[in-house]
């Protein structure tokens, strides 16, 4: 175990370069805001600190070090060129409150990104002011609510969500004030249209759909589905979680969707290991333009690019954050889209799905059961270990943990909930065939262990800095923060 940086400390030890001046001028601060006691910081030398954090970083699993087939998360390579552009001092030093005439270059990049995203999604307009995917969902369903209200359609308070939708969808709908009604999925993975038709009515606000779904398969009857929802007076929300499978091949706008969000940190390859920062693009159909959240970028024919003003979206759902989106993430996505260009963006989906289907076929040949064997995979696919759980007493979690010993980040486990003992595997388009083959070899070795030495799986991982963690105890006995003196807070 690596000790905490606090445990390395010795009283009075300092890193001089990092320490503040001994007597900083504080006389211009309100006395009520001054600390009475010095904060409990780790007292280590600069070298101790550097070694400590370097060591920690070496123990990380990251896309830069390991294959990372975490289904539904699209952990693709983040090009260095995107970072380089976003770190240019001319971008980095911009202040969010800088006058618009100092922001024209940055705003022009955003306008270009908006335009490219509108083209690949088939939306009338895309804005970039959502801080992450879940906020994009919230903005999207809030726009649906505002649209119905503006028409005096107050009864439309029910949001339909298929059980194969992205997990955050029901939460976003509830946050926006909707009742959620779940729509079942047929055994072949498509939405049950008969059940949908029964659920539709004058109370229907819309439906939130992920396509391909979290089952890894494309909703084949999407056009008919869209017609049913529109005829009932509802709108269609597209969750862009899985856009990577269809990027440049099919457009959500052409399928009949009215509003969508894209996760730029997935499909447009910005960093998101460790939870963020994310960035969502929000796209709308023509009739939803008046409801867009402020601020967004307007291409003013007289002034040039500028921030939106109230009259640019008169019935706006409001502001979602103090400022406009995550600037650095948006710049990285812009560079990524420019790097790939039209042809490159068109090849993302085919290669992502080719890699997923290659893995699916090879794992099936090893004896693994595909959850939807009759369907071609999108950019990800589901393996179910329900037979192995019965025969060998080995669970999806055991396999996931054993993969760590093989130098592979575990796939997503136990999601979606409707498939027992599942692994959701998404290789992305940026992995070579050799990497995919090495993963297949690891899964073959694990399969042999199930029969020969299942304890080896149940005790995994064996080679990581910490062994299997007691996640049950961690959840039951919360210990969330370090406190000086050994006490921990719950």
């Amino acid at each position, binding site marked *: 175990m690596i000790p905490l940086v606090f445990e390395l400390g010795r009283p009075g030890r300092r890193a001089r370069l990092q320490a503040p001046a001994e007597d900083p001028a504080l006389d211009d601060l309100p006395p009520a805001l001054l600390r009475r006691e010095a904060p409990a910081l780790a007292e280590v030398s600069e070298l101790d600190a550097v070694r400590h954090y370097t060591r920690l970083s070496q123990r990380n699993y990251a896309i830069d070090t390991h294959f990372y087939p975490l289904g539904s998360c699209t952990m693709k390579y983040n090009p260095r060129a995107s970072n380089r552009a976003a770190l240019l001092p001319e971008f980095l030093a911009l202040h969010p409150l800088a006058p618009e005439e100092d922001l024209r270059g940055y705003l022009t990049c955003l306008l270009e990104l908006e335009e490219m995203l509108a083209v690949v999604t088939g939306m009338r307009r895309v804005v970039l002011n959502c801080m992450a995917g879940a906020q994009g969902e919230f903005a999207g369903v809030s726009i649906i609510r505002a649209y119905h209200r503006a028409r005096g359609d107050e009864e439309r308070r029910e949001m339909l969500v298929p059980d194969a939708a992205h997990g955050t969808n029901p939460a976003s709908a509830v946050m926006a004030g909707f009742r959620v009604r779940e729509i079942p999925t047929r055994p072949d993975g498509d939405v049950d249209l008969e059940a949908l038709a029964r659920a539709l009515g004058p109370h229907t606000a819309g439906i939130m759909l992920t396509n391909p779904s979290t089952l890894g398969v494309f909703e084949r009857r999407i056009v008919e589905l869209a017609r049913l929802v529109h005829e009932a007076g509802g709108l269609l929300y597209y969750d862009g979680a899985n856009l990577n499978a269809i990027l440049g091949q099919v457009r959500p706008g052409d399928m009949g969707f009215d509003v969508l969000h894209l996760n730029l940190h997935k499909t447009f390859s910005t960093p998101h290991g460790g939870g963020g920062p994310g960035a969502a693009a929000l796209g709308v159909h023509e009739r939803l333009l008046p409801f867009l959240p402020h601020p967004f970028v307007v291409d003013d024919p007289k002034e040039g690019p500028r921030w939106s003003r109230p009259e640019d979206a008169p019935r706006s759902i409001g502001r979602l954050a103090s400022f406009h989106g995550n600037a650095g993430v948006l710049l990285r996505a812009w560079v990524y889209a420019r790097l790939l260009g039209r042809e490159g963006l068109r090849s993302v989906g085919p290669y992502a799905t080719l890699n997923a289907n290659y893995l699916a076929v090879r794992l099936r040949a090893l004896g693994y059961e595909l959850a939807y064997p009759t369907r071609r995979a999108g950019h990800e696919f589901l393996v179910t270990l329900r037979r192995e759980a019965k025969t060998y007493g080995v669970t999806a979690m055991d396999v996931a943990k054993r993969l760590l010993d093989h130098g592979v980040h575990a796939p997503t486990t*136990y999601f979606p909930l409707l498939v*027992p003992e599942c692994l959701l595997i998404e290789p992305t388009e940026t992995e070579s065939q050799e990497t995919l083959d090495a993963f297949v070899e690891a899964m073959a070795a694990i399969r042999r262990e199930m029969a020969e030495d299942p304890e080896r799986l149940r005790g995994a991982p064996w080679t990581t800095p910490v062994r299997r963690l007691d996640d049950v105890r961690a959840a039951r006995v919360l210990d969330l923060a370090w406190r000086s003196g050994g006490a921990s807070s719950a």
Partner: protein
Amino acid sequence: MSSPPPSDRRYTRTHEWLRAENDGTYLLGITDHAQSALGDVVFVEVKPAGTAVEAGGSVAVVESVKAASDVYTPFAAEIVAANADLAQRPEVLNQDPYGEGWILRLKPAEGSDPGAGLLDASSYGRSLEDAHD
């Protein structure tokens, strides 16, 4: 392997059980199959006593290391009491889902039909087999 569902109560397709008590209330819990699918339960949150819930409405949330799942009442009812023991020892829900691991007590709303659409033990058992083979 799951133990067979006891025959002194009725079941929903969403894996709740309901047992009629002598005082006209119903005890509600989740089945052995449900607790086994959820895995180790770490938290059980019940809506406050006195809450009125429509048929099909959520009355509690059971959180495990894998997922957080709603627990539904099949008939319109008022929540009378929660199993206070589960707040301190959620693992009881895994150990004894049909006994000490009951979740809450419900009083059927006036005019609601607590028996409607519920499965008996053998039908519920069969529905599990159908789903898994």
